[in-house]
C-alpha cells in the first residue's frame, strides 16, 4: 500500500512539473497593462517641426462603457509581434477612452476557429472587435457584413476587397466601396517603405563608417509574397542610395511561399544569411523575416557586420547578447495604430476601409541607436530628421512608382 501511494505521489509530482512548465510562461492577464512600452520615438528622429499632427490631438472622446475584444492569429499573445502589439494597442486605446474593464483576447488554436472566435465576442455584445493578421481577413469582413452595429478593426488586412453588398469577395474583383458598403470595418496598414527608407539611411552611413567599407549593404526578406516585406526592402534601397548613390544593395528572400521557413525558422534564417554574407560581403544586413530574421541577425553578428532589426526595436526586444551588432530597427507602430483607431471610433472620426499609418500619424520610425550611438555623427541624425520631415510633408518618394510591394 505504501508503495502504491508513493507511486501515485511521484506521478502527481511529475505531472505538476510538466504542466507547470507548459503553463507558467503563458498566463498573460489581460488586466495588466504595465507602463505600455511607448512606441520608441527614437531620439535620432525627434518630432520634426512639421509634425504637430504626428500624434493625434489628445481630445479623446470618453466612452467608458465600450466593450473591446481582440481576436489574434494563431500562436501566443506574447509573441513580440502583431499579436502582442495589437493587443497592447487595444489596451492603450481602451485606457485612453476611459474603459476600465479589462480588454479580453482570444487566441485561436487553428485556422478553422477564426469565425467562431469572432462570433464569441459578437454573442457577448462587444462594441469593437479587433482582429489581427491577414489570415483573418475573410472571417472579419464576413462578421462585419453580418453585424453592422459592431465596429471591426483589422490589422494588416489591406487592401480591403469586398462585394458591393459588403460581403467578402472570394474572387477579389473588389467592386464594393468600403465607405458605403461596409462602413463598420477599418483595415490598418503601414508605410513599411518609409521605415525601410530610414533604416537604409542608417545602413549607408554605417557602411561609410566601417573599417574597410565594401560599399555593399544587404537585406533578407522572409518571402517574396509578403508585400510589406518587399516594401521595407524597396524603401531601404532608396534610403541608402539617398546617402550614397553608388552603394550596392543586395537583397534576397528566404522562400517564395508562406511556409515556416519564411517567418518561423531562425536556424534556417541563420544558414541562409551565412551563405548570403559569404557571397555578397555586405557591411550591414537588414532582416525582414520575423523569427527567421532573428537567425539572420545572429549570422550578421557572428560575421562581425552590423544588423538592422524590423517591426519593433529589436535591440530592446532581443536584449543582450543577441543585440550586440544591431544598430537600429525599422519600426512600424502597430500598437499606436490600433490605439488611434479605437480612439477614432470613440470620437467618431475613424474612416472605413484602408487606413494608412505612416510618418504623418506616428505609424513608422527608425529605432534608437542605443549603444551604437557613438558610430553615428550628427549628420546621420540630420539626414534622418530631414527624411522624416519630407515624409510627413508627403514629398519624399520611398517606394518605386511601379511595382511597389512586388518583389523583382
Amino acid at each position, binding site marked *: 500500500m505504501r508503495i502504491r501511494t508513493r507511486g501515485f505521489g511521484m506521478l502527481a509530482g511529475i505531472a505538476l512539473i510538466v504542466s507547470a512548465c507548459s503553463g507558467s510562461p*503563458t498566463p498573460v492577464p489581460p*488586466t495588466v497593462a504595465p507602463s505600455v512600452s511607448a512606441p520608441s520615438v527614437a531620439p535620432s528622429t525627434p518630432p520634426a517641426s512639421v509634425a504637430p499632427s504626428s500624434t493625434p490631438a489628445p481630445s479623446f472622446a470618453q466612452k467608458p462603457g465600450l466593450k473591446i475584444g481582440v481576436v489574434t492569429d494563431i500562436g501566443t499573445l506574447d509573441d513580440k509581434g502583431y499579436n502582442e502589439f495589437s493587443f497592447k494597442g487595444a489596451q492603450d486605446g481602451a485606457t485612453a477612452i476611459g474603459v476600465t474593464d479589462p480588454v479580453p483576447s482570444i487566441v485561436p488554436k487553428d485556422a478553422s476557429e477564426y469565425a467562431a472566435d469572432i462570433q464569441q465576442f459578437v454573442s457577448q455584445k462587444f462594441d469593437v472587435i479587433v482582429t489581427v493578421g491577414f489570415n483573418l481577413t475573410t472571417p472579419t469582413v464576413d462578421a462585419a457584413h453580418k453585424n453592422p452595429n459592431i465596429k471591426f478593426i483589422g490589422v494588416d488586412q489591406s487592401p480591403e*476587397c469586398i462585394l458591393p453588398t459588403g460581403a467578402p469577395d472570394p474572387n477579389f474583383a473588389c467592386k464594393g466601396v468600403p465607405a458605403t458598403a461596409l462602413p463598420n470595418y477599418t483595415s490598418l496598414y503601414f508605410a513599411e517603405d518609409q521605415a525601410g527608407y530610414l533604416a537604409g539611411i542608417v545602413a549607408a552611413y554605417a557602411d561609410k563608417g566601417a573599417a574597410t567599407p565594401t560599399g555593399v549593404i544587404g537585406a533578407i526578406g522572409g518571402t517574396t509574397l509578403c508585400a510589406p516585406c518587399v516594401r521595407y526592402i524597396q524603401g531601404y534601397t532608396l534610403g541608402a542610395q539617398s546617402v550614397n548613390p553608388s552603394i550596392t544593395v543586395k537583397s534576397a528572400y528566404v522562400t517564395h511561399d508562406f511556409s515556416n521557413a519564411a517567418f518561423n525558422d531562425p536556424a534556417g534564417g541563420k544558414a541562409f544569411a551565412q551563405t548570403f554574407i559569404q557571397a555578397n560581403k555586405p557591411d550591414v544586413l537588414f532582416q525582414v523575416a520575423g523569427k527567421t530574421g532573428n537567425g539572420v541577425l545572429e549570422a550578421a553578428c557572428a560575421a562581425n557586420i552590423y544588423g538592422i532589426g524590423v517591426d519593433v526595436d529589436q535591440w530592446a526586444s532581443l536584449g543582450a547578447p543577441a543585440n550586440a551588432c544591431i544598430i537600429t530597427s525599422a519600426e512600424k507602430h502597430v500598437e499606436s495604430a490600433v490605439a488611434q483607431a479605437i480612439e477614432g471610433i470613440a470620437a467618431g472620426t475613424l474612416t472605413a476601409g484602408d487606413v494608412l499609418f505612416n510618418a504623418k500619424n506616428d505609424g513608422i520610425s527608425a529605432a534608437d541607436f542605443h549603444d551604437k550611438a557613438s558610430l553615428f555623427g550628427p549628420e546621420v541624425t540630420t539626414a534622418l530628421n530631414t527624411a522624416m520631415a519630407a515624409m510627413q510633408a508627403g514629398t519624399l518618394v520611398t517606394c518605386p512608382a511601379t511595382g511597389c510591394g512586388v518583389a523583382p
Partner: protein
Amino acid sequence: MSAPPSPAPAQARSRRSLGARAWAVLAVPALVVILSLLLGAVVILGSELIVTGRKFDPWLWFTAYAALVQGAYGSTDAVIQTLVYSTPLVFGGLAVAFGFKAGLFNIGAQGQFLVGALGAVIVGVALADAPAPIAIVAATIAGIVAGGIWGFVPGFLKAVSGAHEVVSTIMLNYVAVQLLAALVSGPLKVPKSPSPVTYDVGNAAFPIVIGATGHIGIILAIVAAGFVWWLLFRTTWGFEIRSVGANPDAARYAGMRPKLLIVATMTFSGALAGLAGTSVLLGVSHSMTSSFGTTVGFDSIAVALLARSNPLGVLPAAVLFGSMRAGAGLMQINAGIPVELVDVLQATILLFLVASPVLRRLLRLRNVEAGITTAAPSPGLGAGTAP
C-alpha cells in the same frame, strides 16, 4: 475461426453486474479527467501567484471552469459549436484508434488531416459551381483518397522495408505542412489576393443541418464511429486486424497476412484522418489560408487513448475535447485565462492515461481490460500481452 489469440472480452466478465462493468470501463477515464481538472485548478492558482499586478482571486479557477462549461453548453448555438469542434476529433480519434487496434501507432493523423483538406479544397474549388450533391460527394471522396494515400505510404514502407511507422508518419507530417504552404501560396492562391488564400469551395461546402454552424459532417462522424465499430468487431477483416495487433506471429500462424493488413490499416486510418480534414474544410473554413493548420492530429491521439481505442468510446472522448475547444473562447473572455490552459488539461489527461496502470492499481481494478495500454505503447509489432 478457431484462432488462438482472443482479444475479445473474456467470458467471465459477462457474469458481473452491469454497474460493475460500467465502473470497470469508465473508472479510469473519469478519474483521469477529474484529476486533470484539479491539476488545472492548481496551475491557475499557481500562475496567479507568479503573475504580479493582478489581484489574487482564490475562485478564479472556478470562474474559468464555469466559463468553459458555459462556453461549451451555455446555449443551443454553443452546444452545436461544441459538436462542430468535436467532429474532426471523432474522425481523427477513429483513425488513431483503428491503427492502435492493429498495433500501429499512427502519429501521422496530422499530416493526413492536412493532405485530406488539400484534396477536398482542390476538388471543391474545381467543382464550386457544379450541382451541390456532385460537388460535395466528389470533394469528400477526394479528401478521403488524399488522406488514404498519405496513410498508405508509411504502411507500405513498413510492410516492405520495416520502416517504423512512427518515424515515417512524423516525417510525412512535415512534408504535408510544406506541401500545403507551397500550394496555397502558389498554384491554389487566388491570383489577385494580397495574401495567400484559395478560392471558396462554393457548392461543395457541407450543408448546414443544425443551427447556424452545425454542418452535416457531425452526422457523418456518428455514422463513421458506428461503421468503424462494425468493421472491427463484426467483420473478418476487423478480426484479423485485431489479431495482428494482439499477436502478429500467432496471426501469421493462423494464416493471416500481417503485411497486407498493415498496409490496409494505415491506408484506412489515413483515409479517416483525411476525412477529418475534409470535414473542417468543407464544413467550417470553406477556403484555405496558409495558416490552415491544426492540432487535431495530435489531439486525436489523446482522444483515442481516452476512448481506449473503442470506436464508440471515441464519440464521448471527442466531445470532451471539443467542449474544451468550444469553451476556451468564453474562458478567455470571462476569466482572462489563456487558451493554453486547455493545452495543459489535454496534456495532463494524456499523462494520466499513460500512467493509468498506476491508477488502476489504486482503484484495485486489476482485472479490468487494459484496453489501449496493451496495444498502444509498444508501437512495434508483437505489442502487448492480451489480458
